[in-house]
């Protein structure tokens, strides 16, 4: 490929007679073309939608001229401002809960002799596989104020008539979000814990500190940057979720930004106002990202390194059971209980019917698999668009990571920065940007698979890029240099050395993207057409009607397929492939 390109450019050089042009072209290396191609792709995927968002927000929908009226419409109402404040408040609460869930378990799983560590880890991966909206449905079944299972059990045991838990409240909303997002905290903080050596902890122990004092005074400060970093990520993820607020914040009467945005998309359709409304959110998330970089960049702890030092496990004594009980509790409320009630509802005629033989049925599965006209198609669409997006994202990201890490081209840092930037774009905002650029004429991709794949690729590019960077970094350039010395070109080095060495990175990165992409809702919600509906959108439509049994059945089928694909991945990659994320 590169040789074709280079011969082409030489041919052009010969054709273009002028001296100055030839000299420019002589300096022009074929690999620069690759840089240009990648830059164009990133510009199309990221700069264009965000640019369109900004431009639209200042565009008068009628005249097409400049206006700030969209911002006045978007923020001129107390209720719209309130939704933004609510969202920030909710995000902060989700962060606190996610850290409370994620950090102790990450510590217990990596640094202590807590029993059943692998079982707990496996349970937490369940939180990664379970999409947030299914967790939400699970908790509606568990904690609906009148007939939620926990309330029914509570009332029949105590005889009280008041419910003990109610999912349709602010704490309910925060809990349902946190049981999904704490996974991010767990993964990032686990990785940090695994890189700390034990010498400092030993010093504290020798000076008489018990295991908990050591953990609080020594270990915790060492991983604080990772905790803060993952907390910010959690914040970004939670404020952008669409499914959970649609399920819970409407009955809870807690307006948030994503619901308000979807209102601007109803009648009268005001893309411009929606764009204006999302700009402050974008600024906040971008600001947080800058903050996160600062915090992580200041990490001058020599103790946190990949090399040297012994890492020993802390013996907790009887406390090991306490921390195990806590971890088990978190796994229970985040994965096991919601999954259990979801499965039970899927096999029930009526989810309130409980465990009775005459309540048992396979009808829900028959309905979603064979009778419902679009769910079969939607399953295929979800899996194929997820797979296509994962493939595109990982290949794109690896190419960029390779160029950035090997410093092959000038300004490659800009590519890296762009590849990471979708992290700060909430999914639903990205969807509005994509809608504005690619759905409308003249491009007119509305309702195509392509627009979904492009949007998903963009959305998950940062995950791909971090995985790719880690993979490339792990390969020492001397092996490629050996190829070059022996007369092989860059391409030979890539195909014969780098490629095979990156297989594992490719596969694990692919899985890390495929799982969320196959379940993605926030980005899909404004981009699907009638023939390109993905499972998450079908589930959302079912949830409107309260068809919880059927929704559970379809959700279980999706989960089953994804778990099967994960299981194949784990078989080939080993159980710890997810920890390679950092």
């Amino acid at each position, binding site marked *: 490929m590169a040789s074709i390109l280079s011969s082409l450019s030489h041919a052009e050089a010969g054709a273009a007679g002028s001296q100055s042009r030839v000299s420019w072209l002589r300096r022009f290396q074929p690999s620069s073309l690759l840089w240009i191609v990648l830059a164009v792709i990133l510009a199309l995927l990221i700069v264009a939608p965000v640019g369109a968002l900004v431009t639209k927000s200042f565009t008068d929908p009628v005249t097409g001229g400049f206006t700030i009226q969209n911002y006045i419409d978007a923020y001129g109402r107390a*209720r719209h401002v309130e939704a933004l404040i609510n969202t920030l408040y909710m995000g902060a609460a989700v962060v606190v809960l996610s850290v409370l869930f994620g950090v102790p378990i990450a510590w217990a799983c990596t640094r202590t002799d807590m029993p059943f560590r692998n079982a707990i880890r496996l349970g937490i991966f369940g939180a990664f596989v379970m999409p947030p909206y299914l967790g939400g449905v699970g908790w509606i079944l568990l904690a*609906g*104020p*009148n*007939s*939620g299972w926990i309330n029914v059990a509570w009332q029949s045991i105590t005889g009280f008539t008041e419910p003990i838990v109610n999912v*349709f409240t602010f704490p309910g909303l925060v809990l349902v979000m946190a049981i999904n997002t704490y996974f991010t905290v767990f993964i990032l903080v686990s990785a940090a814990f695994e890189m700390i050596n034990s010498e400092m902890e030993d010093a504290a122990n020798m000076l008489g500190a018990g295991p908990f004092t050591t953990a609080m005074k020594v270990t915790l400060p060492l991983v604080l940057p990772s905790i803060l970093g993952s907390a910010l990520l959690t914040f970004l993820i939670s404020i952008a979720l669409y499914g959970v607020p*649609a399920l819970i*914040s*409407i*009955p809870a*009467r*807690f*307006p948030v930004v994503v*619901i308000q945005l*979807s*209102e601007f*998309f*109803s*009648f*009268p*359709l005001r*893309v411009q106002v929606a764009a204006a409304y999302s700009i402050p959110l974008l600024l906040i998330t971008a600001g947080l990202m800058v903050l996160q970089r600062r915090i992580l960049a200041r990490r001058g702890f020599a103790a946190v390194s990949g090399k040297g030092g012994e890492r020993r496990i802390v013996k907790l004594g009887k406390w090991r059971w306490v921390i195990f009980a806590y971890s088990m509790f978190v796994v229970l409320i985040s994965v096991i209980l919601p999954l259990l009630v979801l499965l039970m509802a899927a096999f029930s005629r*009526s*989810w*309130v019917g409980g465990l009775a033989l005459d309540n048992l049925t396979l009808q829900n599965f028959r309905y979603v698999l064979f*009778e*419902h*006209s*679009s769910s079969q198609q939607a399953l295929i669409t979800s899996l194929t668009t997820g797979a296509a997006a994962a493939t595109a994202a990982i290949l794109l990201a690896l190419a960029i990571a390779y160029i950035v890490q090997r410093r092959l081209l000038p300004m490659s840092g800009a590519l890296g920065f762009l590849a990471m930037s979708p992290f700060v774009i909430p999914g639903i905002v990205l969807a509005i940007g994509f*809608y504005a650029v690619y*759905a*409308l*004429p003249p491009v*007119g991709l*509305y*309702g195509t698979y392509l627009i979904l794949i492009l949007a998903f690729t963009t959305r998950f590019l940062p995950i791909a890029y971090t995985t790719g960077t880690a993979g490339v970094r792990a390969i020492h350039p001397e092996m490629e240099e050996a190829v070059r010395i022996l007369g092989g070109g860059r391409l030979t080095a890539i195909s014969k050395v780098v490629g095979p060495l990156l297989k594992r990175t490719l596969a694990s990165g692919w899985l890390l993207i495929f799982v969320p992409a196959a379940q993605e809702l926030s980005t899909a919600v*404004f981009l699907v*057409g*009638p*023939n390109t*509906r993905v499972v998450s959108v079908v589930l959302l*439509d*079912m*949830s*409107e*009607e*309260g*068809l*919880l049994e059927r929704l559970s059945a379809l959700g279980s089928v999706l989960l089953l397929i994804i778990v099967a694909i994960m299981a194949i991945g784990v078989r080939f990659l080993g159980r710890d492939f997810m920890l390679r994320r950092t």
Partner: protein
Amino acid sequence: MLKNVLVVTALAALLPIPALAQSDDFAAYEKQLYEAAKAEGEVIWYTSQFTTEMSESACQLFMERYEGIKCSPVRATGGVTFQRVMQEVQAGAVQGDVFSTNDQSDLLELKKLNALEKFLPRNVEFMSPILKPMNDDEGYFFVSSVSPYGIAYNTNLVKAEEAPKSWSDLTDPKWKDQIAISHPSFSGSAGLWTLAMRNLFGWEFFEKLNEGNPQIGRSTADGYNLVVSGERKIAVTAIALSRQGEAEGQPVATVVPTEGLMLPPSGTAVLAGAPHPNAAKLFAEFMLSEEYSVWLRDLKRYPLRAGVDTAEGIDPLDTGKVITVPVAEAVRGLVEIQESFRDTFGI
């Protein structure tokens, strides 16, 4: 032989039997439409007028009658469905063929945007005389279902004598935390219901209702399902759902409020620029066919055809009291009451 046929045909044409001639005529038209539709192969039906299950079974019925045409319903609440259609219209990439909603003001808005095909099924002439005048007078959409709003309650949790009798009973403090309603920004019929209640009682009705802390869902069907599951005792919902539920043995019963049922006539139109225009027209004809009305009746819904009676135990529409909201008023009032609703209920 051929000669005889010709003679008979000629005679038939001469004889004053308009109905027969018409049905022959219709059969020919239908056949022609069917052939053209078969070439298109598919019809995509954006709908909020039925539940997912009913939409699927309506499509099933259509596919049995017209083999070779795939019928794909895309069911969501009126608000979401309208949002999707509007997105397509704005993108200049209409993907749906037929659009059905409980909120006819959506159809008027689309008509203003030239997004509707000027088309009424020939079958409109057989429509029930109460429904026929509700079709669009310029011929852009027709009434495709009548789904009155009433009250449903859970019979395990509420005794018949304790059940609410009227709309105003909903504000009784005894129903605190036990009512389900739906959001007028999502559900089209909930929007009309909100307007109708405001017209009847003034906005104070909703302020009092809010004190009872109703659960606010997105779809009308959600309230019904909350009552079936016992999560809520009573719901403002489409009584067709609860009547069908009663027939299936679910623990629900239906209340026809003393002030009258609220009547949102659902409307259907063929979208301008539909990718499958002939299939769309055939589907529209099918919605006013006798077969379809019989199917509606069997599901305890109101038939659309003049010749098909309502199911046993259900009074025909013209005998009971009904509350309606004129479309013109809906167009003016809906955005305003959606705002008021959000102010009062905080969402």
